């Protein structure tokens, strides 16, 4: 029997990359999934973003594990759409036990149109406000059903350091948003502890997904040797796999982590301690 048998998990950014990996890992442990993804391009993002076909693939893979999944296209910036997606998922699968606020974007380098403020603002809207929207979409029913729960917010090594900062809207926005997620985690941990709902953040280093492994990032790192060096890991591995982050999350949300709350857990090959 899986560690998460009978639980329902909300996963944002579930179409591909880390989000898909998390959905599958939790489904392997017996959870049913409410999957949300924007499945559209965002103007300030240079790499191709997820598609409806990606989300459909996540659905197919979860169903292959003989778990149920309800998937919706919704932008985490749009709280009405997000609330509706969660409500529909809850109606189909039952109340949410687990929330993974995973959806996020990266921008890199200087904005092509010179609009650094737009890059910064979009990062804050999606990577920070989107996390706030996600938790508030699920928390009221979690409190009401009174059976506890676990929330994991995906921050980053950039939520714990400013290494590689270059003054761009891209770096500033990403770093500020990911630090902000830690603040949300801590305040949520206080808010929800009396209801036995735990809240933690994970802090991955670069993960082998389309957000990091793409021609835009590769050419940026090739042209900026200093930044590349600043973003190197302590352990001898250039990027980790999405599965590594999923394993940490699967542990945090299981009963093995039943008294772990309010913590920042790096999964970073020693990036932060370097």
């Amino acid at each position, binding site marked *: 029997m899986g560690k998460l048998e009978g639980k329902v998990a909300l996963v944002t950014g579930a179409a591909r990359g880390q989000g898909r990996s998390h959905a599958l890992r939790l489904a392997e442990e017996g959870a049913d999934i409410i999957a949300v993804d924007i499945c559209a391009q965002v103007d300030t993002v240079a790499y191709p973003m997820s598609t409806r076909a990606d989300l459909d693939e996540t659905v197919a893979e979860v169903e292959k594990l003989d778990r149920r999944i309800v998937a919706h296209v919704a932008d985490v910036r749009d709280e009405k759409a997000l609330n509706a997606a969660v409500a529909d998922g809850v109606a189909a699968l039952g109340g949410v036990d687990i929330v993974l606020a995973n959806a996020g974007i990266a921008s890199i380098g200087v904005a092509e149109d010179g609009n650094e403020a737009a890059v910064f603002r979009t990062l804050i809207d999606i990577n920070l406000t989107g996390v706030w929207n996600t938790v508030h979409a699920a928390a009221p029913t979690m409190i009401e059903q009174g059976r506890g729960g676990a929330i994991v917010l995906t921050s980053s090594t950039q939520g714990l350091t400013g290494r590689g900062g270059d003054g761009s809207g891209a770096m500033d926005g990403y770093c500020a948003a990911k630090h902000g997620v830690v603040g949300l985690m*801590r305040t949520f941990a206080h808010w929800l502890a009396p209801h036995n709902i735990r809240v933690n953040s994970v802090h991955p280093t670069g993960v082998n997904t389309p957000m990091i492994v793409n021609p835009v990032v590769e050419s940026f790192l090739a042209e900026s040797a200093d930044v590349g060096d600043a973003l190197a890991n*302590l*352990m001898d591995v250039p990027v980790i796999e999405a599965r590594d982050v999923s394993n940490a999350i699967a542990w945090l949300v299981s009963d*093995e982590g039943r008294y772990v709350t309010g913590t920042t857990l790096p999964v970073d090959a020693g990036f932060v*301690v370097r």
Partner: protein
Amino acid sequence: MSGRVEGKVAFVTGAARNQGRSHAIRLAQEGADIIAVDICEPVPSIEMYPPATEEDLAQTAKLIEELDRRVVTTKVDVRDSAGLQAAVDAGVAELGRLDIVCANAGVFEIQPALELTDSAWREMIDINLTGVWNTCRAALPHLVAGGRGGSIVITSSTAGLKGTPNTVHYTAAKHGVVGIMRTIANEFASHSIRCNTVHPTGVNTVMIQNEKTWGLFEPDNAHPTRESAAPIFESTNALPVPWVEPIDISNAILFLASDEARYITGVTLPVDAGYTVK
């Protein structure tokens, strides 16, 4: 189904009872053989709870063997670096390898700072800080020689992250082991040897379940009990629990020791019901 640390060997200090025994058993349940050591003797400045005994250590060994895992036990003090080295060497010789280290052995005593004697200070630092280093020092050559990497988990405390009154020697030592952890994480990363700390809040063992510790939480009660102190313990945690169980720390250590955490190193992991964030 294969265990999460199948075929590995773990070295656990303070293994006679309580958290150390729980870690040894949890790792054995998931397939590890165990090198178990404990002082099995009293320490002069530790007065508020009784020491572990040789019978305790033998019981740990029996429980591991009942899981059909192998175990090598040695009665040794973590302050005795030569004795500790010999114990690890003997364990590795018999069990064939070393992969996991739980630097768990430690003591706890309550003492207002200005009443702390030189010898009590020294004893605490020697056991809880130098003893951790001795443990790592004895194990690291085997981890390096094995060429398969490894995972060291040092047991710190919430007192390794926050100041706590009436425990200056304990708090200093528990902060100190974070420095050991961070240095080892850096110095041995190229060998794929990971090093992390866990930071428990109060754990339901005799180390906190004693009249003096209850009294620390309930200073106005002349005869504090487990029951009367529990709400005060609970008020220090964010989650509505007074303390956690040894198995909760063991589950965190098992995760950190397993390949599920293959890229987690240099991390301070609280298992503290939200004590640190409160």
